């Protein structure tokens, strides 16, 4: 019973770590998807008196992914009923050219300022609209969300690390006597530590299977899908191959590190 309890405490600690890690991965994917969505809907509008080649605009900064000319036809057709054709022809001649610049990623406020300065250097550009105020607010919200998630992950990692350290002390106490007795009869280090490594690997596999099972179930039940869909984001909650490999890898690495530390810290008692 005692032994089951000791196994359970390591399994629970490992399960908590890998499960939290998966939550962090999903939240990170959500934030990235949201960031992508924001970037897709964000563009800088520039106004020029003369027609400018869109490639020239793209070449002005590596941050500019593409540039499209905004058609004025729709505006003019709206005015057609209210204005005479002569005036409309005049308007067509005097109307400036509008370009929408799409960026490679959602920019930070300083990047927007930098881009603005570069664009201002072009003598053909008469006006730049970067929607700085609404962009800044959204960007700061995004940063705050990211920071909260990182803090949350650090807190969980700290708590579970303490659990693992406590578990390590119990293991050290448990295994020291057996390892010392085996050493007394000339067992090499690998033989003395074999039991410890076997137990830690088995515990890591159990914790991984439990975590993968829970996450697969949550994915199957479409937990959180509705909320994500309501903000127009589609996120992969669980990638069966890559995420499973990551979970097993992290759980195994942690438990092997734990076992190695115990073997290194072993002091012969007899």
């Amino acid at each position: 019973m005692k032994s089951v309890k000791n196994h359970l405490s390591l399994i629970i600690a490992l399960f908590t770590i890998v499960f939290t890690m998966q939550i962090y991965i999903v939240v990170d994917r959500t934030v990235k998807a949201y960031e992508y969505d924001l970037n897709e809907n964000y563009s800088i509008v520039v106004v020029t008196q003369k027609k400018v080649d869109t490639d020239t605009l793209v070449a002005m900064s590596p941050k500019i992914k593409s540039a499209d000319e905004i058609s004025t036809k729709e505006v003019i057709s709206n005015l057609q009923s209210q204005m005479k054709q002569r005036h409309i022809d005049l308007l067509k001649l005097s109307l400036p050219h509008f370009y929408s610049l799409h960026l490679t990623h959602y920019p930070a406020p300083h990047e927007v300022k930098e881009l603005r300065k570069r664009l201002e250097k072009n003598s053909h550009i008469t006006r730049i609209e970067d929607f700085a105020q609404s962009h800044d607010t959204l960007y700061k919200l995004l940063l705050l969300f990211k920071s909260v998630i990182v803090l949350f992950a650090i807190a969980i990692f700290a708590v579970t690390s303490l659990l693992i350290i406590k578990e390590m002390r119990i293991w050290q106490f448990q295994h020291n006597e057996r390892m010392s007795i085996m050493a007394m009869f000339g067992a090499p280090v690998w033989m003395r530590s074999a039991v410890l490594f076997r137990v830690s690997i088995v515990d890591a596999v159990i914790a991984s299977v439990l975590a993968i099972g829970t996450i697969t179930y949550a994915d199957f039940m479409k937990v959180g899908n509705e909320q994500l869909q309501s903000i127009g984001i589609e996120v992969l909650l669980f990638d069966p191959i890559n995420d499973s490999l990551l979970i097993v890898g992290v759980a195994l690495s942690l438990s092997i590190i734990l076992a190695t530390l115990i073997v290194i810290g072993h002091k012969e008692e007899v």
Partner: protein
Amino acid sequence: MDKVILAQDLSLAYNTEETIISRANFSVSSGDFVFITGASGSGKSTLLRSFYGALKPENGSLIVGGVEVNNISSSKLNFLRRHIGIVFQDYKLIKEWTIEKNVALPLIINGYAKDVCDIQVDKLLNHVKLSHKMGKYPPELSGGEQQRVAMARALAHNPILILADEPTGNLDDYSSKLIWNLLEGANTQLNATVLVVTHHIPEDLAVDYKHFNIEGGDVYEVS
């Protein structure tokens, strides 16, 4: 006769200020049965620990089984220990292993095949009159029974040297008698060298023995 243990100007200490054995010179030949006596705290167990490399000499030289213990590497130390059988007053059995696995420990370490281990364990448990307790775990056995298991474990791999630290200290008369008979048998039938740390030398021992006493850090032979 070959020297199994040779100590020259041997000094042992737990720290540099507190010397327990000071400049001792003695030797133990192959096939000897040796008692080490002395008052409590005189250094009997400390001396025994140095024989299996758990304590390195502070000064002087100590050779056990032809191996210099002073600057021994861990692989050589393991090799030396595989030829020694050790019995402690507190048994030092692995509690989560069955008694047959405990007895088989030196055989497993020495790389014996499973069927050889099984035969040897059967024979030894029969010898210490515990074959009926084969599947039990040490905490399920009495003190005397546990010491008999420890004794069987010490004999399992036919060691050249058996070290026993107060092997009958906690035992009843029946178990004590059995342990002394086993130690005598190992010495006379298997030709193992036996070193026993004890407070009292049994009077009815059937073997010739050497007797070292420790007093004031000095190890001397009692004639």
